[in-house]
């Protein structure tokens, strides 16, 4: 089925199987998200993409697009809720951006920038979480996990491995590693796995790749996430359907896309750094 829906007053076409968020992205309309990723099965955990569809609240990443839907995304109420959700994610973990390798390439941070989030509003949890640096090529800083489940899905659906899982509920929720010791080094993850690169925050990091792009030259230092999220989609849609709304010169350069751990919109994963041979 295909047809059109109306998002914030813009007529957006959709094709068979697209969710609202994907139809929007293809048309260059940005709806913020964190647990969604193009090419992955919808999951719907972060609620950042919450929109009103025909007057009812829904997550845009899970709801199939349907002909004639009226979607409101950009209202002050929804923006306010998104900011509060993002602030909760910041106080629940330990997000000290100045000391985080992912800063500038981090989707959580970029979403917060997009919302002009200037403070964290809530009292901080300062949750005690361990760091697992046992693996030679990959590390997990649990402080920064937002439980988006992307690494879990990547490992299972893309790498065919099941290295990760989320255990516990509420405040006791945690990312666990499927290995006898619970340590990453004893799991069968490899640095070439999609799961090693998919994390939207600085929770799963590839070692020795931190400063490939210097601070200030990273993806979201240069481009708002709304642009990064939609440009490729808009260009693709442009090729296919005559959309011509975006300026390709404003895309992150290929070196940023490869160097930056944000493989976000790359159709294929960026080449893993050549760790074996040093650099």
């Amino acid at each position, binding site marked *: 089925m295909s047809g059109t829906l109306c998002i914030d007053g813009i007529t957006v076409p959709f094709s068979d199987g697209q969710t609202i968020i994907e139809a929007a992205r293809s048309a260059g309309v940005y709806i913020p998200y964190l647990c969604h990723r193009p090419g992955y099965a919808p999951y719907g955990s972060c609620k950042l993409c919450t929109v009103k569809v025909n007057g009812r609240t829904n997550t845009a990443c899970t709801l199939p697009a349907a002909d004639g839907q009226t979607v409101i995304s950009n209202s002050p109420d929804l923006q306010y809720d998104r900011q509060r959700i993002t602030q909760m994610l*910041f*106080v629940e973990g*330990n*997000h*000290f*951006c*100045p*000391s*985080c390798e992912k*800063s*500038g390439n981090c989707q959580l*941070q970029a979403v*917060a*920038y997009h919302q*002009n*989030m*200037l*403070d*964290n*509003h809530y*009292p*901080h949890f*300062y949750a*005690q979480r361990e760091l697992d640096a046992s693996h030679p090529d990959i590390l997990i800083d649990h402080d920064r996990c937002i439980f988006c489940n992307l690494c879990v899905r990547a490992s299972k659906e893309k790498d065919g491995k099941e290295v990760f899982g989320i255990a516990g509920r509420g405040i006791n929720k945690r990312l666990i590693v499927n290995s006898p010791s619970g340590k990453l080094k004893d799991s069968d993850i490899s640095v070439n796995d999609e799961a090693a690169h998919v994390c939207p925050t600085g929770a799963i990091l590839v070692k020795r790749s931190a400063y490939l792009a210097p*601070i200030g030259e990273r993806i979201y*230092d240069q481009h*708002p996430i709304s642009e990064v999220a939609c440009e490729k989609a808009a260009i693709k849609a442009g090729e296919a359907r005559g959309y011509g709304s975006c300026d390709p010169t404003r895309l992150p350069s290929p070196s940023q896309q490869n160097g930056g751990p944000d493989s976000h919109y790359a159709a294929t994963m960026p080449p893993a750094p050549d760790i074996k041979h040093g650099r």
Partner: protein
Amino acid sequence: MAAKIKIATTSLAGCFGCHMSFLDIDERLLKLADVVEFDRSPLTDIEHCGPCDIGLIEGGVCNSENVHVLREFRANCKILVAVGACAINGGLPALRNFFKLEDCLLEAYQDGIGVDNPQIPNDPELPLLLDKVRPVHEIVKIDYFMPGCPPSADVFWSYLSALIEGRDPTLPYELVHYD
């Protein structure tokens, strides 16, 4: 001549990097000096903050003195601004929150490498440490937040210009950074 706007600044548990960044507004300091007068600040060495229009707080809250200073600022400043990552989320000093206070003291003053004459400082003159470093908004009401580690000179300029002109400060996308 209209009365000058009074500004007070302080660094609680911070590194003074935000103050340094403030000074980075360079020659714009002269423009500022035309309309602004500094009350308590490292620039003036005044001990207590008097009635002020704007208070800038750098750093989080790590000890009893920080609490007193912060409350004094709140009581005296019409507008209170949390400046920088430490004031907003505890920042680097808050990394000690993941250890017991006792262990921090022992490491710093007794067991650490190179410690001479090991002893835990204990003098009534010394402010007592809080068990956790806290962002300032958890202690007093904060009116505005200036993110960054440190916020750039342009952030200071943009904020202060707005506040001095009686506008709500807002930051354009390029100036919003947490690092």
